[in-house]
Structures are given as C-alpha cells and as structure tokens.
C-alpha cells in the first residue's frame, strides 16, 4: 500500500485494517502527520498540530485494539475545528482575543470522540468565532482550497473541510450555525452534516448563535458521517437543549435504496443568484435520483427568501451576548487601561476582528430599546414561519434536494470587502439552521474542476433518512472519490506561504 493511500482511507477501511492488525494506529497517525507536513504549508488548514498527543493517543488505541476492544473510531486520525474546547490544548476560535486561552475541560463531543478512541491530529482553522463563509476571517491566516489554492475552502469550518479534502485527517469536526459545515463541505468536495439542533451536545463549543449552533462531522463519505454521528449524538445533561432521543444505528440505515421515497425540489432554491454550473450539476443529480426510483416533485418553501435576513437578526443578537464575556478579566487577551472600562474597550478593540465587531454592533442594534420589536421579535416570528414551512412540506415529501451553495469556491479576497455578497453564500443553508432540521452536503459534480455540493434536508431527527438519501446518490456516482490536485498557488506568495 502506498503511503498516500493511508491518507485517503475511509473510516470503515481504516478500522477494518486496524482490527485485522494490518496497520497500526501509530502508522496511520504518522501518515497523517506526514501529510500535514507535506501540504499544510500550502493549505493552512491547521491552526495547531497536536503531534505528541496524537502519537500518545495512537499508542493507546493500538493497545485497545490489541486487547480486542474494537470501536469503529478507535485509532482514527481526526481534526477538530478550533471552536471545540480541548483540555490543556489551546482553543483560539480563530481569534486574537483567545490566542492564549487554554481550556480546563473538553467539549462533550470531544470527550465522546476521545472515548471512542479517535486520535487528535490538530485544531483546524476557522473564521473568527465562526463568523464567515470563507475562513478568511481567521485572525491568523486564511485557509486555501485544496482544489485551487487561489480559492477559499468556504467557512467557517474551512480548515476542517480542507484538512479532510487533502487527506490530512480521515475526518474532522465542524460546527454549523447558518451553513458553516455544509458550505465548506460543498466547496471542498467533502461530506458535511449539520445534525438536528440538539442532537449533538453544544457543551464546550465557544458559542456563536446559541439557538442555531450545532456540531457535526466533515468526512469523505456518507458512511463515515454516519459512523461519527453515532459516536457523538445523544443527550448530554450538561446541555439543557440537547435532545433526549434514542441514537439509532446510523450505518445500518444506509440501504442504498431510495425507491418510492418522495424527494421535494423547492422552487425557491433554484432562483436567481445561482451559477449556471451549479444549476447544471443539480439538474444532473436530480436525474440520478429519478433513475434510482425516487419520486421527485417540485415543492414550495415560501419563507425561504426571508431566511437570510432573519438569520442576520437572531444570530448577531445571540453572538453579541455570547461574546460579552471576552473582557480581558479572566483569560485570553488583556489590554490594560486607566480603568476597567478602558481595559474592556481596548481589549475588545484589539482582540476582535472587523467582521466580529460588525456582528456585535448588529446584535446590539437589533436588541436596543425601541428596535427590539421591529427586529428581534419580528425575526423570531419569521423564524417560526420558516420552521412551519418545513413542517408543512415534510407532510408531502420525505426529504428535500437543494444546492448547498449558489456558486463553487470563490477567489480569496473576492468577497471580503462586500459582507452582503459573503452572507449570500449561506442563502441555501440558513433555512435548515433556522428550522433546526438536519441537512447534509455531498459532492454532486464539478464546475471547471471545482466541486459542487448537493444538500439533502430532512425533518427533525431525520438524520437516518437524510443520510440514506445522500448515501444512495454516493453509491451510484464517484464524485466523492475524486482527489484534489493540491497544486501550489501560482501567485506571488508561492512557496513562501506557511
């Protein structure tokens, strides 16, 4: 087996080899670390490499495997978006203000992954506080798309998506507030699931939009998503919003069969703003489902057009409060001042990037006396209507098929100066976030050698169905097997980026 092949194993393949002791977790981990060394200088997917911990965890995993204690994730190399709290390991959330912050506890999802034997290769880059759709808002450096180094990998979980696409890790964890798992998955040709709100514990995620945030996996196949979800899902007494529902065997639900399933194609998701290549790829994908025996039908989600503007009222409001704790008193950056108020404002002025400040201002504004009813209350009302849209449509169809993002990966810098254009990247992913329903993005074609993503949306707690629909498509296509060229950027900074 070629060294490179170790980097592109699926979880199933890797754990099969591990359980038969044909490879060790240490070998797999060393291969991952080598891969990071080879290509992360160009990609910048990783914010922090945890090599020592990784090798230690790999040795432990090998011991467990030797004892016959087999779990599907035991010994598998992974990446964690730097928004997940990791005990004794810096957790920056892509921000200067948390550059020196080291948590004293693990996020629940991290605990569960560690318990399952997963091996942490590193913490991945992200837009600061998960605010962005390109990973260019990272306070440290932008991440590049493995398919084209002059393009963004999407965001905010762009580091996780790029690391998975480039074979640096077998899977990575992201978080999704308005599309931050699905959109980068689409732009990097990977699979990304945003579970039902409350399906996976939020405990230990640096909070952005608390009523929307949801962690989920980014992988190279639907089956791998099912495996990781099985390990992290379930009630957590430390997260009062986590759902107390049985965690099914997500893998066994992947039957490959969608015959007779009613798949809705919402008109509103094929409106203007979508690139013609994305439209073309989606039309082909719909054809695939038709051939597989699914019953496709046009449906309408009339509130879709209000999703994005509503999202930009609710999420900044919650973010404004969530980010208030970064004041320099207890941890992270502290810029001294003549008095405590000056200390607060200097710390926040220096520590936060411009997009974060924009959202804090937005959140402060929409909650201010005199504006609260016009913005926040109204937005909550619209959010209810968006949710009802989905509830209604799921009375007539089993799942929805939509594009994940309106365009393939865009160029670095292309949308940085135009926040509204950047916000539009999430126009197809935000409604499922607002409704709290599960949605997965899978590769469904290429546009000028750039991956295009297809989104499958299902009803609340319908992960099994969503994954079954996505998996059936994957079984009859090979887009997910394509590997990025990982060429060097041909701009001036070739060879010097690090």
């Amino acid at each position, binding site marked *: 087996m070629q060294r490179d092949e170790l980097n592109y194993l699926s979880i199933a393949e890797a754990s099969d080899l591990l359980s038969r002791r044909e490879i060790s977790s240490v070998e797999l981990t060393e291969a991952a670390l080598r891969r990071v060394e080879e290509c992360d200088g160009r990609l910048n997917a990783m914010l922090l490499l945890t090599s020592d911990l990784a090798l230690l965890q790999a040795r432990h995993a090998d011991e467990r495997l030797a004892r016959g204690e087999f779990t599907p994730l035991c010994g598998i190399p992974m990446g964690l978006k730097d928004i997940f*709290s990791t005990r004794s390991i810096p957790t920056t*959330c892509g921000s200067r203000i948390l550059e020196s912050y080291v948590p*004293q506890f693990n*996020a629940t999802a991290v605990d569960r992954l560690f318990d399952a034997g997963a091996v942490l290769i590193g913490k991945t880059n992200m837009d600061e506080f998960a605010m962005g759709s390109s990973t260019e808002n990272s306070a440290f450096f932008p991440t590049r798309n493995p398919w084209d180094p002059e393009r963004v990998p999407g965001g905010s979980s762009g580091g996780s998506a790029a690391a998975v696409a480039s074979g640096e890790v077998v899977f990575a964890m992201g978080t999704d507030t308005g599309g931050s798992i699905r959109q980068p998955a689409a732009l990097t040709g990977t699979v990304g699931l945003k579970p039902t709100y409350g399906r996976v514990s939020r405990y230990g*995620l640096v*909070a952005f939009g608390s009523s929307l945030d949801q962690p989920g996996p980014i992988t190279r196949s639907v089956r791998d998503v099912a495996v990781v979800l099985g390990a992290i899902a379930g009630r957590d007494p430390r997260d009062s919003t986590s759902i107390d529902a049985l965690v099914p065997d997500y893998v066994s639900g992947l039957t490959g069969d969608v015959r007779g399933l009613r798949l809705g194609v919402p008109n509103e998701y094929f409106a203007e703003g979508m690139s013609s290549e994305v439209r073309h790829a989606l039309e082909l994908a719909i054809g695939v489902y038709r051939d597989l025996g699914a019953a496709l039908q046009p449906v309408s989600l009339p509130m879709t057009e209000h999703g994005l503007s509503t999202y930009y009222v609710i999420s900044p409001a*919650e973010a*404004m*409060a969530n980010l208030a704790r970064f004041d320099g008193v207890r941890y992270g950056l502290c810029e001294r001042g003549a008095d405590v108020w000056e200390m607060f404002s200097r710390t926040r002025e220096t520590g936060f990037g411009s997009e974060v400040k924009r959202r804090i201002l937005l959140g402060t504004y929409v909650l201010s006396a005199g504006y609260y009813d016009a913005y926040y209350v109204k937005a909550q009302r619209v959010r209810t209507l968006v949710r009802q849209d989905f509830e209604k449509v799921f009375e007539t169809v089993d799942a929805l098929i939509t594009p994940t993002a309106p365009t393939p990966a865009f160029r670095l810098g292309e949308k940085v100066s135009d926040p509204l254009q950047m916000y539009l990247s999430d126009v197809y992913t935000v409604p499922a976030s607002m409704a709290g329903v599960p949605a997965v993005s899978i590769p469904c074609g290429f546009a000028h050698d750039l991956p295009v993503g297809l989104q499958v949306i299902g009803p609340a707690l319908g992960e099994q169905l969503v994954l079954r629909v996505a998996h059936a498509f994957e079984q009859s296509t090979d887009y997910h097997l394509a590997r990025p060229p990982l060429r060097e950027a041909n701009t001036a900074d070739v060879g010097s980026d690090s």
Partner: protein
Amino acid sequence: MTGELVPVIGLEVHAQLLTQSKMFCGCSAAYANAAPNTHCCDLCSGMPGALPVINQRAVEMTLMTALALHCEVAQISKFDRKNYSYPDLPKGYQISQYEQPIGVQGWLDLGDEMLSTRCGIIRVHLEEDTGKTSHVSLDGSDVSLVDYNRCGIPLMEIVGAPDLKSPEAARDFFSTLRQILMYLGVCDGNLQEGSMRADLNVSLRKADREPGVKVEVKNLNSFRSVQRALEYEIERQREAVSAGHPLVQETRGWSEARDATIAQRTKEYADDYRYFPEPDLPLITFSADRVAEIRQSLPEMPAEKRSRLRREYGITAEAAHVLTADLALSDFFEAAALAASPATGMEVANWSHGDLLRLLHESQSEIASLPFSAADFGRLIALVSGARISNAAGKQVLEAMFETGEGPETIVERLNLSQMDDNEALTEIVKTVISENPGVVTDYRRGKAAALNVLLGKTIKASGGRANPSVVRSILENELGLPGPPSESPAG
C-alpha cells in the same frame, strides 16, 4: 405647603435562596467565609462553552414564595439574558427573568390581623447573583479584585408595589417579608451577610396628583438602614420641593457613616439591558397539579401561626408576636408547652420570651445551639408551676441548664433546690424565726397584717429558698393566730 406631600414608597428585595448548589452549576452555594474564587467552576466564572443547567430546587423555592405571597403563577415561565458589562459579571450578561416571571400580582399583609395594611407584590422572579469587586491598594497601586464565589448564587427578586406611605411601613414590609422567607425555609434571612438586600423607590406626591420624581436608594441590608434612609430621603425631597429646587431621577446609596443618602449616578438615559430569551435554557413549565401540590405543602405562615398560638395556647397577642418573630423560638415554645403540661401556655410563653430570650441574648447564641431540649425546658416550667421548686430556684436551674445542658431534675437534685413542704421541719424553722424577730411579731399582733410577709420571707431565706411559701404561711398563721385589730396606723 409641603405638609400635604405624602411619601410613595416601594421596595425591591433580593433574597439568596437556601439551595445546596448554585443556580446553574454544581458549585456549593455555601460560600460564606470561603477564600476568594474557591466556589467557582467553568460555568460560574464564565469560561467559553460552559452551559447552564437550571437548579430545580431554586425554581421550586421561588414558586413557593410566589404562592405564599398570593401571586398568580404562570404556567410557562422563562429565563432571559440581561446584558451589561461589569467585571464581576463574568458572562457579560446575567441570567434573569424579564417577560415571564414565576409569579405576578400578589400581596403582603403588614401588621396584625386587626390593624393590617396590604401592600401589592408586582412580581417574584429568579435570577443569579453576581460576583464581588473590591478596590484595594496592592504594592502601592490601586487595583480591583474580583471574587466569583457569590456568582451564580440563586437570587430571588421580589418587587413590591409603591403602596407604602412611611419609613416604618417600609421597614415592616422588609421584616415581614424576611419572616415569611424564613418560615418557608427558602432564605436564611441573614442580613449582615447579604442574604437579603433591599432597594427602595421613593417619591413625594401631592394629594390627587401623580407621584413626583422617583429616587432609588440601592443596597440596604438592615431594617434600621431602610427606615433611616427613607426618613432622610423624604426629608431631603421635602426640603428641595419647598425650596423650589428641582429633584432629579437618580440612584442613591446609603452611607451608614454619614447617616445620609448619597448620589451615585444620574440617569441621563434609561439603562438598556437588551433583554432577550436565554437560548441555552428550556422554558420552565408548571402543571396545575404541581402548583396545587406545592400550595398544599406550604408551611404555616407567621400570621397564621400567631392566631393559632393565641387560640391553642391562650397566650396574649403580644406574646404570640414575640414568639413568632423567630420560627425556631415559636417551634421551641410549642414543644416546651407540650412537655410543661399542666402549666399554662401563658406560663410557658412568659418563660420563653422572658428568661430564655434574655439568656440567649446575653450569651449571643441561638435556639438551635441550646444545649438542652424544648422538653427539658417544658419540664422545668412544670416543676415551677407545680410548686416543686420556687420561681427563684427555677431561674437558677435554667441558668445551670444553659451551662451544663443537664436536665432540670438532675440540677434540682444536684443543687438541692426541691421545695420543702415537710410540716415538721418547716415548723422548726418558723419557730426559730419567730423567736429571733420579736419586733415583727409584735407588729403583727398589733394589727399590721403585712408583717406576716416579712416573717414568711425570713423563713424562706432560712430554708435556703426551698420552703414552700403556702405551707409556711399556714404554719405562721397557725403559730401566731390572726392579726390583732388595726391600731394607730393602717396596715402596709
């Protein structure tokens, strides 16, 4: 002119709830006297990613309070974030209740049944306490130190209506409320340690007009300071009005040292706390069954207890008032009365709020730390009441019980205090007394009836205080016969 200005007063009381753990985390709520920042965790010190979990006991205590204050209880209540920046507020927001508090529109009766006034309760809600900032000089520079131990302690806010008209009434509101919370067992009522704090709203109104400019006085933690701050503030506002100076809407503090309220900050603009629903917590729901169950299980309230004690034990209103001021004392009284039978309730009440309270006060201790039981105390009263020991001996025994914790019988035995009613022995003593006091005897025989009491006293003294007075009296009368007819001066 100013004579027609009437004060309009309302109180907002914050009470720390007596839960074992904090409001939203597992930290121990017993932080008093703990070293700074030893009662905090990732959540209550505001670490990123930590999430709150509702302390159900605190919700129940607030519900109990709302019901005891005759509030309407919503079926659905929720938490909101109250956003403001302060170093001792580690999350940058306080989890509180804004739109849907646990209880609304109740009332509190002040004074006794016969003469009570009713003050409205606008709302009862639950929130978390903040930390404490202290400004000190450290190595020559001025620094602020923050202690998060208090952070996240369950705090109940009770907002009274501006129905009060005098500083005395406000003081009464605060103390009555404190008593109710202590009876409910939801707050320890320790004012010195800040378990209860009051904010005051006070304005003056002319008859038939809207109230004038409202001034808030923050953070009062004693009955006296509530009353004094209001007296001061009412006087200050009266003077300003009569001198024609405009009053400003402001927040003032109370300075014990200066015996005055002091301007803190002027409200040029209203605080904008940007409240919105707390997304990390589910709604709180109260089923009708649960509310009924808690209403059923509410303990007896002070006013109810006062009338019951009067009815069942035949004690005076004043005695009932004194006894019920302290739940522990009134419980002690009832248990003692049971053991003191056949002594009357009033006898037990007198002993309780007389000698017992005096001794507690002198030793600065509490009922809970008494070394003897209520039954011991009751049996002591029975001994006195049944003339087994004298009243004076009873007091002596009680003091010994305070010191040693021994039962009354043991002490009576040890100190040889049991009353002598042995006729022969007492006759001997009486005879000696008569022979040693011929002058007094002569007075008696000449018609001065009160002289018998002198001889009686001398006999009891000669017996070491143990002689039964009624036995001695009959022996004396027997020995001396009836007093002669009154001569030159009337008896006494």
